[in-house]
């Protein structure tokens, strides 16, 4: 059973405290929604988990493996992620992007890349340049890439951005299927979409996290569900500062 533990992690950038997390545990078979206003530290936290940012203090571990410069490669093999799209992929064809991913993750390339694309409802030629795809199609492609090495942890930063209604439904279904034996962490500002898929929610504000609550607990405690939980935590952080 995979566990992702974030223990007393702090991160400051240019003298500003961005993250102050006491303790967070994510377990598999869970779909965790990380919500919070812009600048709350959601992406910073996810980047710390992926080794893209180095915390000033604290530990991030997957089971017994503590993230550091030496273990970063092993850590990354366990993670699949979709972050904001980089323009370096725009000049690549779909095939080139998949080939690179499969090569570095040590995977055997399938006979036809179209099977990988069909999993995320993409009906395009593998020769098509990524720059010519729509934002939603690129999101689907990046999701296909993120799940291709069957990671233990799936990190999705704003996965519903730019998706058409069919794309949103497909992504939600995929997330539900994938969560069977994985930890899925999603950030999104779309509470309606999150409500449909997540099992637990954590609110972030000013680098701090709320206690984790299940959707059932949230609905029981707050009359307006996730929105109530969100405002309640943000108000409490603001009153403390």
């Amino acid at each position, binding site marked *: 059973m995979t566990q992702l533990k974030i223990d007393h992690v702090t991160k400051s950038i240019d003298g500003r405290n961005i993250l102050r997390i006491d303790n967070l545990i994510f377990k598999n078979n869970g779909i965790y929604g990380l919500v919070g206003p812009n600048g709350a530290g959601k992406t910073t936290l996810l*980047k710390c988990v992926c080794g*893209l940012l180095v915390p000033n203090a604290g530990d991030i571990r997957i089971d017994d493996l503590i993230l550091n410069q030496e273990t970063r490669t092993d850590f990354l093999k366990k993670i699949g*992620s979709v*972050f904001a799209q980089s323009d*370096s992929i725009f000049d690549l064809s779909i095939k*080139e992007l998949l080939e690179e991913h499969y090569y570095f993750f040590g995977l055997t390339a399938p006979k036809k890349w179209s099977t990988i694309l069909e999993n995320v409802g993409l009906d395009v030629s593998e020769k098509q340049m990524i720059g010519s795809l729509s934002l939603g199609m690129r999101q689907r492609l990046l999701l296909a890439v993120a799940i291709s090495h069957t990671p233990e942890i799936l990190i999705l930063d704003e996965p519903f951005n730019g998706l058409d209604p069919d794309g949103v439904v497909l992504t939600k279904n995929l997330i539900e299927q994938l969560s069977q034996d994985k930890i899925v962490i999603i950030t999104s500002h779309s509470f309606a979409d999150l409500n449909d898929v997540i099992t637990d929610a954590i609110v972030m504000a000013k680098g701090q996290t709320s206690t984790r609550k299940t959707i059932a607990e949230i609905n029981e405690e707050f009359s307006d569900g996730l929105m109530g939980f969100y405002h309640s935590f943000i108000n409490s952080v603001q009153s403390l500062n």
Partner: protein
Amino acid sequence: MMKHFNFEFSRMKKMLLPLGLTTGILQLLFLYFFALVGRFDASDENNMLTSYSSVLGLATTGTMCVLAIYGTVMASQYLVRDYVGMNKSKTYLLPISRKELFYTKTKAFSAVISLSMIVGLLISNLVFMMMNVIIPLIKISPLPHTIDVVVSTIACICLTLTIILFSSFIGIKLNSTVQGIIASIVFVVFLSNLSAITLMSYEFLSLLVAIAMIVLVTIAGISMGRSIDKNEAL
């Protein structure tokens, strides 16, 4: 390591033909331009252009200047861009030592540049020598001038590679592909005179300088790799 090199090389090899063709055409054009200037302009200042070594030195410098900038534009697409802005995240998420990946990409890129330049320079110089037998423009002594061609080719490749790599490292350090290209233009302005003078008159000195530059750029590359290993993708 070699496996990674082969993979990166295979992704970059589409640059071989355009770079090789550009090198060959430029070198041939510069050789004919300077040879014709020397032949038809009899003034004292252009007297040196009646010597093949001088024409070769100037033509090679011209080719180096253009290729250094063109190569840096290529490097910004195939190397620098993976290490600037949001693209860093994509590169750093690959499960391979960042340092090792950077060295592999740099080596593969250098191999592509060197290979295309060797072929382009040698073929164009050979074509010029053979055409000179049919339509003589300048006096060429086969053996000493063949050595000149080999020395100037090595020096040109080393200097071009040095400018491209230094400019690329500056681009990565300053987090901008444009800054890298600007750096290459500045380097070309400063190094072209030095290159022209040494290639025309002190070929072996230019070779020594070029090799020293390669050593310097290698040290800079090693230091860049270490800094990338500790770098963050904000």
